[in-house]
């Protein structure tokens, strides 16, 4: 019995060390990319000049029950700084007055458009054009979910690149220009995304980020550290070896032909953003085609983080289901033919991100039980907790360091103090709670629960 306990104890200890070593390796991979990014900043920050050779972009804005905010969101999109783009809003059978709000704000009229039905979707009811803004169109369709709405947007789009985004994403005026840059610099690029940051506590005016700040709510604060970890060394690290498996659905640009050829967004999935990226890897590798999926460390998109436990829980459950679904639908990517994404990123995601919650929760429960029943000493139990928490804290602090050397968005000493406190709180209680929610998400995925539009109650108190 004691051998089994000892064996399991070592297993959990080594698991926690293993997962954190993986993240430290990602951190090390991210450092040269960030260094290079900082080095070329004098070049990138020069005033932009457009030649007409920049690929035009269709911004696809799927909207479901966004009556209150859709008009201001679209207005802010129309002010983006980029050479040529169009905005295609897709009203996914909203039950509220989303369409009416758009009609009123932008003087829409029905247009007999012959759109290209390259992807199979729910029926389109009507396509509207704005009399005020020639670059704005609204597609009204039967409800089919976000992925279906994006596919309709792809069918209706005119340009070779499209940007999939959330209706409530907060952008900077140069966000689109920055995220398209990899398509200019590297002809192999089929997708590009950037860092998503938390908007709570910031000042947003006219839908654009005006001033960066920290929120007062501890739950939002801790998510800032969490996002820094996920984006600054998670995705940047994977991008260094062309193995990014997620580009956030909040703001990502894609080469339309590649996405259409791969079948578009998968309807009836929760994590349609991740599923598409994993499928694109699989699709391109199976055909031996050169391709690149880029991830920019630049903060290009801001989103409101939930400040209520109930909403956060539902969000994390949905994310975990999306992750599990995306990986298992594309399991064929795993293996030597999958290159870095299939050999390294996919197994890492499967073991640590997808099934990790099973092992982590089991580890905490097991160690607590064997301590309660006296199979291990209090010192052994405390040392296990110390190991799990200290490694997590180290990773959070290293994310803060990367932020410090790269973007430095929270410049005051007091802000750094608050973020360090948040990093401690993140590892003592918050992460464990999120792990339990992720486990629930995994169980729901295994039980095959149906996907719907994610509901996120926005407060938007920081919007001017």
């Amino acid at each position: 019995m004691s051998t089994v306990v000892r064996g399991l104890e070592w297993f959990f200890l080594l698991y926690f060390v293993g997962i954190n070593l993986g993240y430290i390796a990602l951190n090390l991979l991210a450092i040269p990319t960030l260094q290079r990014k900082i080095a070329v900043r004098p070049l990138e920050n020069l005033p932009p000049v457009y030649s007409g050779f920049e690929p035009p972009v269709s911004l696809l804005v799927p909207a479901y029950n966004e009556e209150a905010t859709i008009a201001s969101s679209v207005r802010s999109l129309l002010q983006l700084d980029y050479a040529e783009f169009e905005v295609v809003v897709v009203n996914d059978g909203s039950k509220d007055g989303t369409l009416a709000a758009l009609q009123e704000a932008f003087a829409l009229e029905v247009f007999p458009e012959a759109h290209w039905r390259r992807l199979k979707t729910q029926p389109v009811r009507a396509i509207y054009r704005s009399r005020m803004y020639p670059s704005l169109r609204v597609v009204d369709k039967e409800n089919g979910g976000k992925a279906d709405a994006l596919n309709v947007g792809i069918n209706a789009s005119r340009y070779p690149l499209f940007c999939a985004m959330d209706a409530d994403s907060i952008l900077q005026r140069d966000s689109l220009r920055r995220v398209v840059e990899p398509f200019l610099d590297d002809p192999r690029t089929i997708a590009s995304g950037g860092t998503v940051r938390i908007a709570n506590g910031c000042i947003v005016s006219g839908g654009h980020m005006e001033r960066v700040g920290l929120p007062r709510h501890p739950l939002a604060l801790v998510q800032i550290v969490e996002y820094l970890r996920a984006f600054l060394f998670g995705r940047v690290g994977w991008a260094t070896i062309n193995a990014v498996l997620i580009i956030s659905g909040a703001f990502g640009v894609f080469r339309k032909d590649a996405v259409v050829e791969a079948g578009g967004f998968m309807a009836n999935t929760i994590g349609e953003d991740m599923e598409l990226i994993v499928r694109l890897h699989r699709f391109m590798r199976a055909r031996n085609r050169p391709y690149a999926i880029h991830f920019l460390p630049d903060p290009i998109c801001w989103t409101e983080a939930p400040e209520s436990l109930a909403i956060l829980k539902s969000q994390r459950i949905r994310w975990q289901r999306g992750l599990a679904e995306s990986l298992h639908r594309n399991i064929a990517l795993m293996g030597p033919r999958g290159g870095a994404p299939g050999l390294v990123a996919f197994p890492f995601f499967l073991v640590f991100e997808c099934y990790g919650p099973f092992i982590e929760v089991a580890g905490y429960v097991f160690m607590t039980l064997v301590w309660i029943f006296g199979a291990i000493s209090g010192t052994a139990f405390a040392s296990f907790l110390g190991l799990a928490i200290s490694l997590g804290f180290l990773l959070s602090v290293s994310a803060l360091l990367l932020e410090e050397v790269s973007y430095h968005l929270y410049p005051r000493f007091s802000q750094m103090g608050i973020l360090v406190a948040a990093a401690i709180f993140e590892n003592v209680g918050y992460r464990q709670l999120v792990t339990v929610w992720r486990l629930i998400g995994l169980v729901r995925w295994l039980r095959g629960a149906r996907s719907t539009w994610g509901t996120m109650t926005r407060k938007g108190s920081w919007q001017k």
Partner: protein
Amino acid sequence: MVRASSSDLDIVFAVFVTAAALASAVVLLVSIAGMRAWRRLRHAMIARRLDEWREALYVATEDPQAARLPRISALDLPEFLILFNHFGESLRGEAPGNLARLLRDHGIDKRALALLRRRSLRLRLIAIIAVGHLREEDAWTALAELSRDPGPVTSFAAARAMLRIDPRLALEVLGPSIIAREDWPLARIATIFQELGPALVTPALVNWLLGRPRRGLDRVVKLARFGHRHRISSIVRGWLTGSDRAEIIVAALDYVEEESDLPWVRGAARHEDWHVRMAAARALARVGEHREVAILLELLTDPVWWVRYHAAQALTRLHGLSPNELELLHENARDAYASEMLGHALAEARLR
């Protein structure tokens, strides 16, 4: 020395990892604090100087003699050059020359030259951009060497600086790279060509087009839009008859402006590559007459949306085709796709 028994080896291991992690975290936190303190100090130091430099540069755009530029320390030089580069990017006319004079009078041109040899990519890029704006001929050799760098960032920045210093010579020297280096983004080359203007770029473009390089001709053809259209047109239109490469025919079709080319355009409308068919529809929209209706109706049933779209657009723009005839064509279209596309084009034409 106390030796751990096998039963407490796990504790020793966990404690060791915990201690190492916490010690590393403390080191990182101290580094963050140190960097933050240094950054604040630098920010405080540089903020006032930036105002002085900005003021001096503003004055110098009009009269370099009247500008009072304080001495710039080695530590401040990169920040000063970044500011100068921003001025350089946005100024036209005599102002860039005046600014360059101010910097030369203060010996900053030589200091920027010295920065070109630094290992730091950041410093080198700042210096490359600066010597470009300064039109620093002494930097030519160093820039030519940097333009051959295998990395696109440094090589392209150097090429851009060379094109600022002596555009004619740079187009000659850099021609093979502009044509063939695919890691030099076309959109960025295009901004330079746009800045240089047709008088400077046309001779180089004509030479490259006449040379018809096997690799990179598509890039040259795209850049050709920045040259004088009449000079480019006479070369490119000749390719309509003598090429079987789709991208060449597309380029040629985009320069079609005369009715005499119509027989070739009609042939291109039946080409197997849809890009060629689309370009043919566009060409017919420019030069086609009433008799092209039949071929455009044929293109209106093309399997590719873009070909149908441009065919419908061409019909609405065709000389000699009345609105009533167009409506009639729409009503009588048997193919559902053709009818839908013609309806779309007619609605767009009404908006024009």
